């Protein structure tokens, strides 16, 4: 019991040391945290109501409205905050669904192998190849637009890569000595998966999910732009779509378009930094690259596991 607790503790603290210990990952956490806080407290923090007209159509930025007004005379800063709340909700929800579905299928296929693996991976392969955006368009067009549908559609696009990644990892974990020992001691499948396999693949799953959040927000903005988002919800994608449809371009109202896209880009960059740092730390092949390519000096080890003698 105590041994398991300890093993789990090191896995979590290792993840934390990577996320907080790498400069880029820390920047990513701070950036993502900033947007999450803004999103969580958006109803309290936003300076104006999002359905109240406070000026003219596409009024340019001023002191009272630093990012100007949209086509309905609504304050852009307030709209962006509300949009962030919705976009992040969709992003995190879809990534979580994808994590559960993709992770579940990956664990099942990797752990049991045999025909289970063959069947599940065959299905995954087909879904991996079918182009996701057109498939999402078809499904969203058929189902009709709503936030729930949008989350499911985006999750449907994301789970395949998670499943592949997790399956490969589980296959290697399954063959490790401590798993075999647990099996020899009579542990059931459920126990082995929950106690021994999941903690091992945890960091990889987290990194993958963070990257999924980025993809989900990107996909949401694309689907919203094509008119397949929830018509009642304000998201960053929706803001860009409405600005496009309501001639913000010919009005020269860059403030109605530019900030929303930058928000999407910043959140994606933040997720990319976090996910990439964790994946890099997990990838043993990159650790081998201990020579700095430019000067061919021996670099300091990336982690304590890197025992390179200078």
């Amino acid at each position, binding site marked *: 019991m105590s041994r398991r607790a300890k093993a789990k503790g090191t896995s979590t603290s290792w993840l934390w040391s990577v996320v907080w210990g790498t400069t880029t990952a820390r920047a990513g956490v701070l950036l993502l945290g900033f947007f999450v806080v803004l999103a969580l407290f958006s109803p309290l923090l936003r300076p104006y109501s999002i359905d109240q007209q406070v000026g003219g159509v596409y009024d340019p930025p001023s002191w009272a409205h630093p990012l100007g007004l949209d086509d309905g005379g609504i304050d852009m800063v307030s709209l962006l905050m509300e949009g962030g709340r919705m976009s992040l909700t969709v992003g995190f929800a879809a990534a979580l669904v994808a994590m559960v579905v993709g992770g579940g299928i990956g664990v099942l296929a990797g752990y049991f192998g045999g025909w289970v693996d063959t069947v599940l991976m065959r299905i995954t392969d087909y879904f991996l190849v079918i182009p996701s955006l057109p498939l999402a368009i*078809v499904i969203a067009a058929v189902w009709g637009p709503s936030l729930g549908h949008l989350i499911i559609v985006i999750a449907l696009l994301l789970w395949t890569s998670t499943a592949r990644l997790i399956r490969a990892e589980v296959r290697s974990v399954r063959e490790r000595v401590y798993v075999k020992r647990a099996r020899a001691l009579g542990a059931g499948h459920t126990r082995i998966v929950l106690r021994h396999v999941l903690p091992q693949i945890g960091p990889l799953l987290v990194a993958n999910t963070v990257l999924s959040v980025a993809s989900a927000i990107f996909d949401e903005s694309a689907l919203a732009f094509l008119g397949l988002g929830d018509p009642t919800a304000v998201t960053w994608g929706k803001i860009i779509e409405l600005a496009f449809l309501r001639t913000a371009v010919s009005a020269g109202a860059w403030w109605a378009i530019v900030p929303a896209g930058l928000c999407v880009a910043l959140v994606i960059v933040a997720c*990319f930094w976090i996910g990439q740092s964790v994946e890099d730390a997990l990838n043993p092949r*990159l650790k081998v690259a201990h020579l700095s390519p430019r000067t061919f000096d021996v670099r300091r080890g990336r982690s304590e596991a890197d025992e390179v003698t200078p």
Partner: protein
Amino acid sequence: MRGWSYLAKRVSFSLMTIFVATTLNFFLFRVLPGDAVRNLSRVPHASPDLKAQLRRQFGLDKSPWEQYLLYLRELAHGNMGISFADQKPVRGAIVEALWNTIPMVLIGTIVAIVIGVATGVLAAWWRGSWKGSIGTSFAIFFYAVPTQWLALVLLIAFAGLLPSHGMSDPYLLDDSTGAKLIDLGRHLVLPATTLALTLYGEYALITRSAMLETLGEDYVLTARAKGLLPRVIVRRYALRNAMLPVTTLIALSLGYLVAGAILIETVFSWPGIGYAAYQAVVERDYPMLQGTFLVLTFSVVLFNLIADLLYARLDPRITL
């Protein structure tokens, strides 16, 4: 021969995928709310006779299973149905749209490959210095920005300088081929640039990580120990091996390109396959949507196959 069995395996997988996509395509649209005939007739109070006739005409009185077989048979003959929007065959419209998409996508991709690979190599080479960081940051930024947003920003930035809409100027007075080509080129600049920029980030990041992996290999260390010039090491030792994953990933991404052009073509009203898909969504033109989905799937599957075979051909460690 093992090579042939590998080829046969990949080709049969590709054919199976297209079959699965086709089936998905059929059944997804069967669960649509409402009756297909009601969508088609578009008459508020169509008589029962007319409805029955339409139903017979389109085979909707048959069982779903028979309809499915009918659909497959017609598709095998290249019949993709009739568009709801303009009552013309879907196939003709799609072929025309594809011819408009290809030049734009091709030019954008070539530009993206050139800049992307160069940036990736330099960013890997300068890893750890400010020059490398700038290269990587640019790549990450363009990888992260929404495609449609980048297109709109370019539209605003070049408003008045370059045409923003369509493929040709309908009011063009000069009728010569040269003038038409220049006009087409001017229309092409913004969509192709958007495509190139969004792809460039991805290609640069892929190249950079592939380069970093090969630069850490022992043979690079050996080459360095032999006293070879860094330029030679990068070009002859590292880049050659790094191009392996890069080539296949680029081949892979080519398939998704056509699909990715949906957003760009929508912003610039470029009359290609992506714009056709967007219009089909807006007008709820299901046969058209089905057709574009099939064509897009086909392109992805085809390029997947090419990527697989290319990888096997390029990497001698994979024995065929």
